[in-house]
């Protein structure tokens, strides 16, 4: 099964972000999300919120995120995504954002608060198409068939399924209802299925191995950063975690 991991750019600092992503690739990550820090990350739980806050307080800018993407895309061979919130994109300029993200080497974009319903006003999906950036759509157990269909029409690469009702990092019990939910998603999306939110242990991965194609791990990486005593141990702990999740 494939694995997508996650970093907040500039957490704990810019240099570490670069080292962490390289370490993740070495340990077997298949994709990495580089989250652009934002003041009000509406879909994120306390762990990622705090990381965003710290990155912003240390002065991390969107320009820094482009620079990190540029450095990393020349050093790793796995696809790297920008994850972020729409106001960052909107404020910079939708067209310019997509252009600069692509030039920096981004493979695709995950912007959870820009639904296809607003495309008519935003032309964001069109801009990401134009610049050949994969458009990752996020769906949830609450998504009706109508909404799955709407998102499927504009989705690329894989579909990002939120595992349960909640924000990132919230504890998860992968219940029986997961199977019918994923089956419903598969009916609408002709793409690999990725599952995220609350997935942090090898046991979680084993329990979803036969259900989905890609596991997404975010907050657990930040916990590992936080519990490491030095930069060196941080990198080795992250590698250890990523290896254990690659099942």
């Amino acid at each position, binding site marked *: 099964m494939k694995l997508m991991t996650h970093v907040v750019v500039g957490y704990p600092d810019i240099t570490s972000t670069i080292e962490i992503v390289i370490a993740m690739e070495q340990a077997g990550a298949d994709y990495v999300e580089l989250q652009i820090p*934002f003041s*009000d990350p*509406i879909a994120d739980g306390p762990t990622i919120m705090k990381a965003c806050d710290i990155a912003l307080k240390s002065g991390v800018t969107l320009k820094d995120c482009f620079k990190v993407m540029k450095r990393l895309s020349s050093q790793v061979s796995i696809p790297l995504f920008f994850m972020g919130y729409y106001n*960052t994109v909107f*404020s910079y300029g939708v067209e310019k954002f997509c252009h600069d993200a692509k030039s920096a080497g981004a493979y695709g974009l995950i912007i959870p*608060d820009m*639904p296809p319903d607003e495309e008519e006003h935003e032309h964001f999906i069109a801009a990401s198409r134009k610049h050949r950036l994969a458009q990752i759509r*996020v769906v949830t157990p*609450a998504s009706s068939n109508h909404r799955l269909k709407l998102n499927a029409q504009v989705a690329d690469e894989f579909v990002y399924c939120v595992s349960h*009702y909640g924000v990132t990092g919230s504890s998860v019990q992968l219940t029986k209802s997961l199977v019918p939910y994923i089956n419903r998603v598969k009916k609408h999306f002709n793409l690999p299925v990725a599952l995220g939110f609350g997935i942090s242990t090898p046991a979680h991965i084993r329990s979803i191995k036969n259900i989905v194609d890609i596991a997404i791990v975010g907050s657990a990486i930040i916990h590992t950063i936080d519990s490491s005593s030095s930069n060196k141990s941080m990198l080795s702990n992250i590698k250890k975690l990523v290896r254990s999740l690659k099942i």
Partner: protein
Amino acid sequence: MNFFKYKTKYDADASGHFGPYGGRYAPEMLIPALEELEEAYMKAKNDPAFEKEYMYYLKTYVGRPSPLYFAENLTKHLGGAKIYMKNEGLNHTGAHKINHCLGQALLAKRMGKKRLIAETGAGQHGVAAATVAARFGFKCTVYMGEEDMKRQRPNVFWMQRLGAKVIPVMEGSRTLKDAVNAALKDWITNVRDSHYILGSTLGPHPFPSMNRDFQQIVGYEVKKQIQELEGRQPDMLIACVSGGSNAMGLFYRFLEDPSVRLIGVEAAGEGVRKKGRHASRFAGGRLGVIQGYKTIFLQDKEGNIAQTHSISAGLDYPGIGPQFAYLKDKGRVEFSAATDKQALKAFNLTVKHEGILPALESSHAIAEVIKRAPKMSRDNLIVVNISGRADKDIFIVAKALGDTEWNQFIKEQAK
């Protein structure tokens, strides 16, 4: 029985856009809930039984209609236009917030929800939400920025007495916008059994339109009351604007009467030139998409929400209700701003001349009256919305006025 069928040419389109503003920029996990809410609201709007129930509780529980009061002394003192005060401070729970809380609670009941989630800044919306939760049998959780909990302690106490769980929000600036984030996240997690009783004319569609509809009772009453008192309609309406619920409540029924000037007053805090020390969105704000909708937000150059300040906890929200952004573009509503000092001065003047204690939020609107009334003719009529009363502001006002006896009292109580 057609109260909720009232429409204007300034309303949102079917997808909740007021021109370029508004919309539903929500993460996917919220969209089904917003669709469910919209559908339930559209149904309720067209159901005479819903209107009857809403009107019944407005009258018997909230205490409506609230009086339209001729502020004779203030009028004489300022020596210009005749000043009328729409006194929403006399509503049950002390502010206009109960109007939309009642409407939403009745709706949540219809939707079969068991729990209400609310955010609150000044605490007035939180108290009103906790009140309707107690009355209609909902569990209730209120998110409140830690900073606001300090500023509005009395309201925290009352929310807890009313059975609500008040959760301090420790993130960001620890004020209203952070409480909105926390409430939205709770809703994402508990969307199946909970209704988010959002407290202003902001947020993703249908909240701005729905809360406006529940607040329009204010202006609806004013139209009748002023006709009875003066035999004509007013020349000017003035209200403070943060998200915009009280101002929209007063203005909405007048939007299509071009002879009535509409003035919204933002919080200028320590002055609109001081970055981060005011909450005037039209002084330094720009178009953005945050918290599920598009409007003018105070933000930094990267699109992160900027720090704001106002002496009143209810006016420091960084975004303006989307319909107001639209009404400004259309030239239908004019905007002004009042500083902390001007608001305090207006507060003192109103207390002294009228024996009315206006909330610090509403005092911003009165500050605008003080600027405008003397320049207007004695035949002119101004209606100002006293959106709430000041009981909750006792600590802030005492501190701002440097009341030594009060300080002594607080010290003794703390022993």
